[in-house]
């Protein structure tokens, strides 16, 4: 009968803490939002299922979670390898920062920089939105986080999941779960957060501005761009080499026209595999005891703030630029500078059409949108260089 009792002890019903139950509910809500509202399902479904799996309480001594790492111990003058759990191996791609650059490879192989090439001044809007990153960084320092922690929290404002994970793994591994969840949550909530800010800061006349259709960009321009843009970014901010190297490598595979099969795999099977592993293991890292802390709430608060500031900065900078331009920019387009590709560009389109159903801003919004990805990666590179 002892063994039967032992069995019952191994079941999870007894060990289930309220925290675990909350996190399992959070996971279910994530999956529900993905299915019902179609918010970033490729991220929320894996993260949600990961959160459910990661919060099943396990008997002491059974190594099954993401934090049950492999170890090397010294025994009898030799080094003994002690294996970790399966989830801990999958999580290595997160903690060592390997998955994010591979995701960027696939994003590069998907991204069409044409609209940015045809209207270069929109690039600046992608820079303006990074004010959200640095303002949040300041806020986090002010709230008492250390400088590296604050840097990792600030990058949530970059609205770029892989970048946030990459920087958090380097600067504040303990906060990685909270930062990743915050980043992806707000990226999913872009259609909820951005519209009020955008409407508040623009007049109806501004929202009605129509922009000139983009010019046709030559193949040669699109081939040269990834190499040149990489060199510019890398020489100015070498900390961004890994992320931007992969992003522009992927784009070169696409635009070179002679490596189509590699580009195709990078943007399908390869990015899908990495997305599955990244999402699931990030989700599984949200074990209640490491995740449910006051700190995490602060991080969520700062994250929301950073999205608001980033959106506002993009819109305001577009209005500022309009003072000097003859071909006016519709300031809504500035909101796409936060990246969250392609959701924030879709939001721009939607808010624009509420004012004028015949105004198609989507294509124009893609330019600051992809520029925002580059901007956030540079910001991450800068924060990494200075704070390590």
């Amino acid at each position, binding site marked *: 009968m002892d063994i039967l009792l032992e069995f019952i002890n191994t079941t999870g019903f007894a060990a289930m803490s309220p925290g675990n139950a909350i996190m399992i509910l959070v996971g279910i809500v994530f999956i529900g939002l993905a299915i019902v509202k179609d918010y970033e399902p490729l991220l929320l479904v894996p993260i949600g299922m990961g959160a459910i799996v990661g919060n099943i309480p396990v008997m002491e001594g059974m190594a099954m979670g993401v934090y049950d790492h492999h170890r090397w111990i010294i025994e009898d003058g030799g080094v003994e390898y002690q294996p970790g759990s399966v989830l801990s191996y999958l999580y290595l791609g997160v903690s060592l920062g390997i998955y994010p650059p591979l995701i960027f490879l696939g994003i590069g192989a998907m991204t069409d920089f044409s609209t940015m090439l045809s209207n270069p001044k929109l690039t600046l809007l992608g820079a303006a939105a990074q004010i959200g990153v640095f303002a949040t960084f300041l806020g986090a320092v002010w709230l008492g986080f250390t400088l590296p922690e604050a840097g990792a929290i600030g990058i949530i404002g970059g609205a770029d999941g892989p970048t946030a994970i990459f920087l958090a793994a380097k600067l504040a591994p303990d906060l990685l779960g909270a930062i990743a969840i915050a980043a992806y949550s707000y990226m999913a909530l872009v259609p909820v957060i951005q519209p009020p800010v955008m409407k508040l800061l623009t007049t109806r006349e501004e929202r009605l501005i129509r922009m000139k259709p983009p010019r046709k960009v030559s193949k040669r321009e699109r081939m040269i761009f990834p190499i040149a843009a990489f060199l510019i970014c890398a020489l100015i901010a070498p900390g961004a080499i890994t992320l931007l190297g992969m992003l522009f490598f992927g784009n070169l595979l696409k635009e070179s026209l002679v490596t*189509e099969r590699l580009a195709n795999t990078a943007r399908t099977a390869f990015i899908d595999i990495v997305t599955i592993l990244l999402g699931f293991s990030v989700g599984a890292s949200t074990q209640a005891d490491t995740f449910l802390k006051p700190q995490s709430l602060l991080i969520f608060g700062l994250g929301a703030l950073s999205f608001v500031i980033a959106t506002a900065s993009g819109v305001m900078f577009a209005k500022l630029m309009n003072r000097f331009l003859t071909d006016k920019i519709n300031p809504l387009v500035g909101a796409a500078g936060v990246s969250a590709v392609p959701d924030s560009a879709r939001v721009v389109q939607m808010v624009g059409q509420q004012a004028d159903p015949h105004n198609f801003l989507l294509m124009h919004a893609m330019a600051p949108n992809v520029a925002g990805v580059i901007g956030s990666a540079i910001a991450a590179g800068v924060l990494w260089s200075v704070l390590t």
Partner: protein
Amino acid sequence: MYLLALTAAAANPQAAPDALPQALVIALSGMLIVGSALLLICLFIATMPRILAITEKFWPEVEEAHGGAAHPESHVPDDDAVLAAIGFVLHQEFQRQLQSDGPA
């Protein structure tokens, strides 16, 4: 934004950690770097068409169609199945044509 943060810090000076001034410099120079990188990209993009217009005279952009054609192995389709299906339809068609020609 910086102002906002500054004000906040000023309003609550005791709470502001010692790292805040340093953080402010980091934030300002970081924003400067991001801005200058994207500004350089913007200037580069704006200039590129003009430079290419010059090089175009010496080295015209021919229609480089080899990309797709040169790597037939990347097409995983199944030509066979498709061709078989099409073949079947064409066959049906020709049969019909023969038949309808016959009586006519």
